[in-house]
């Protein structure tokens, strides 16, 4: 193969890889991406019950109940609430009054079926989305993140 042909060959291989990569990415973006909403967002947005989403906020005090492996609790951004149900083991740092992020489906307005409660690793850690959601609702007290440093 001559040098010119080699250059053409590089170009072709690169181009095919580019097209392949781009089409895979675009295809995967269709259903590989999960949007995050706060309870207040959900009040105003209509979300299809088969679209996977994440919600986040604080676990409302005094709302956690357990029936065998089924947990239900309310998630709040101190403005709106949403009922969450979850079957399984809650993460170690799950507590009433603490921040939480749940992934699952909004089966009907105000009712969320969680398939996963996201694990957190640190008692001081507040998911950023949750902090922002609470800040947005004007109920932010203290600066949990900068406590850590």
């Amino acid at each position, binding site marked *: *193969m*001559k*040098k010119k042909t*080699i250059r053409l*060959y*590089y170009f072709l*291989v*690169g181009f095919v*890889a*580019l097209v*392949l*990569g781009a089409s*895979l*990415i675009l*295809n*995967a*973006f269709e*259903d*590989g*991406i*999960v*949007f*995050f*909403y706060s309870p207040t967002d959900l009040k105003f947005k209509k979300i299809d019950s088969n679209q996977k989403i*994440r919600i986040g906020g604080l676990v409302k005090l005094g709302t956690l109940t*357990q029936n*065998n*492996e089924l947990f239900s609790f309310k998630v709040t951004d101190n403005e709106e609430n949403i009922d969450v149900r979850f*079957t*399984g*083991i*809650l993460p*170690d*740092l799950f507590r009433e009054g603490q921040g939480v992020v749940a*992934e699952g489906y909004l089966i009907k307005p105000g009712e969320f079926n969680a398939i996963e409660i996201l*694990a957190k*690793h*640190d*008692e001081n*850690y507040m*998911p*950023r*989305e949750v902090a*922002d959601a609470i800040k947005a609702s004007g109920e932010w007290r203290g600066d949990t*993140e*900068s406590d*850590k*440093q």
Partner: protein
Amino acid sequence: MIPEIGFFTLSLSLGVALIQSVMPLIGLKKNNLTLMSLADNAAIMQVLLLSISFATLIHSFISSDFSVINVYQNSHTTKPLIYKITGVWGNHEGSLLLWVLILAIFGGAVVLFGNNLSKRIKAAALSVQGMIGLGFIAFIIFTSNPFERLNPVPLDGKGLNPLLQDPGLAIHPPMLYLGYVGFSMAFSFAIAALIEGKVDSLWARWVRPWTLAAWTFLTVGIGLGSWWAYYELGWGGWWYWDPVENASFIPWLTGTALIHSLVVLEKRDSLKSWTILLAIVTFSLSLLGTFLVRSGVLTSVHAFASDPSRGIFILILLLITVGGSLTLYAIKAPKLDQSGVFSPISRESSLLINNIFLATSASTVLIGTLYPLVAESIGIGKISVGPPYFNMVFIPIFIPLIILMGIGPYLPWRKAKIINIYLNLKVVVLLTIISFVLFFSFSNYKLNDLAGCAGITLSAWVIFSISNDFINKIKLFKNPIQDCLNRARNLRRSAYGMMFAHIGVGLLIIGISGSSAWKQELIVSLKPGEEIRIAGNRIIFKEINFLNASNYQSLMGEFYLVEKQVLMKPERRIYNQPEQLTTEAAIHSNLWSDIYLVIGDGPNNEGAYTVRAFFEPFIPFLWYGVLIMGTGGILSLTDRSVKVTPKRSRNNKAVPKAGSI
């Protein structure tokens, strides 16, 4: 007093780094050997100064000197000694100090082992190393000083996150750093080659051992992190496509590509500018990884820093490094002469395609990792890109890559004949098809069985192909056994290294596909005395115990695995410093599959506990795969032709050895 010594030597090292970056460059310009060799002294000095600095920090941790903020925030008197020491790099400031220490050690190694390097290349490379050091040492001094004092002195420290008090995690960060920083050597040599305007096979031989070493460390480091996530986080998984995992995986992908393109450059004097680009990109991605993990843009167990000024500092460092090196590349790379022609079906071509696939997969992972950050900043909304995205983009690129992995070793350099490939591989293809039929016929004919069997077949393909190649090479079944043994003995270490690494990948794929296809999970509410069944295993919940250890209290379940006659003891611990709940999974492995038990909430008002049980088939193969891959890396490093300082011939040109692959 001692922390001040640490800070003083750290500050001195900043000055030394400045000298190391500037003087050799002036020397290169003026062709002044004295100025050039100043780089050597500076590099050695750097090792000494930073070792002292690091040692003083360790001393502060061991002696629990809480007048140092960093010690106060990350240590505690009751912590076991080993975790006092690992606490040094269990935090942002200390881990960065470790980062620059490792950088200095690599620089020192160039001086010690680099006597045969071209003086100019060595000086240029050390100067680039000096610049990287300069940036990071300044970063530590101005934004993340580990020696900062606290007044008044607290009585006791805040303790280390208990999740980090773990032997696997004690060595995970240093391993990753050895990998990241190791790639800085490839980077420095790449910049040096661009400055000097010369890239040849000798250059590839200089760079290869550093890259191999970095790759080996990174492989083991990522493996350790994954192992830790599996047994410590208690969620039964080992990889989540979490941004911090991706941050180390992306440079691994391009680093793997770099190892392969270096082979082409060394043997065939081809793919020059591509290899240089890969070296630049790989280290830039390592820096990006450090930035993502350390800047606080991602929050996780790894994100120590949440101070925005740090993020901006690292971002600027990143921009200078990437921008500067790519500009230099744009100017200089077109002048590198291309040589070494090859046909589309050849060893070169297969390695090039390997590179393209690895680079493409690295880009798709990178885009998925960065997209949420971009989306949020341009106001699309808060999104997360999770495992479904990564599986969808990654698997289709990796399958052809693995198939190619089985073919590549059979292709000769320059030009291959398709008929020969067919003759060499027909037995392998046949065996692969048979094994698929066999695997699938023993399954339940479900979709997940098909996927699992396909994955395992892919590994069978790689393993058969490598074995067949080995058999061909030593002429087993053709020549007398003594001759075969001699041939096996004379086979180069790097050839063994390649076989090991590829077989390691094969084992890894068994682990990945087997565990994803056949994992079983059970969540139940269980009272002591009751039992469960998972994957044919009877597990009896015998009793529950409460324990008091020095730094935690524990609720420990006792489960009896009837068929295996073993007792499993999952725990829920509450640590006191800092107060934190952790889950200690109990794992019983038969070296083939694991039974994994987690005890959750309880007791409820009926006295039951939530128990989560997993059947984790083929998980151990992940760890075998990583070990074998790491062994492959070490074998290649010990090849007699791979020396840190390959001999130069007089005219500074490499003489490819006749008959070398």
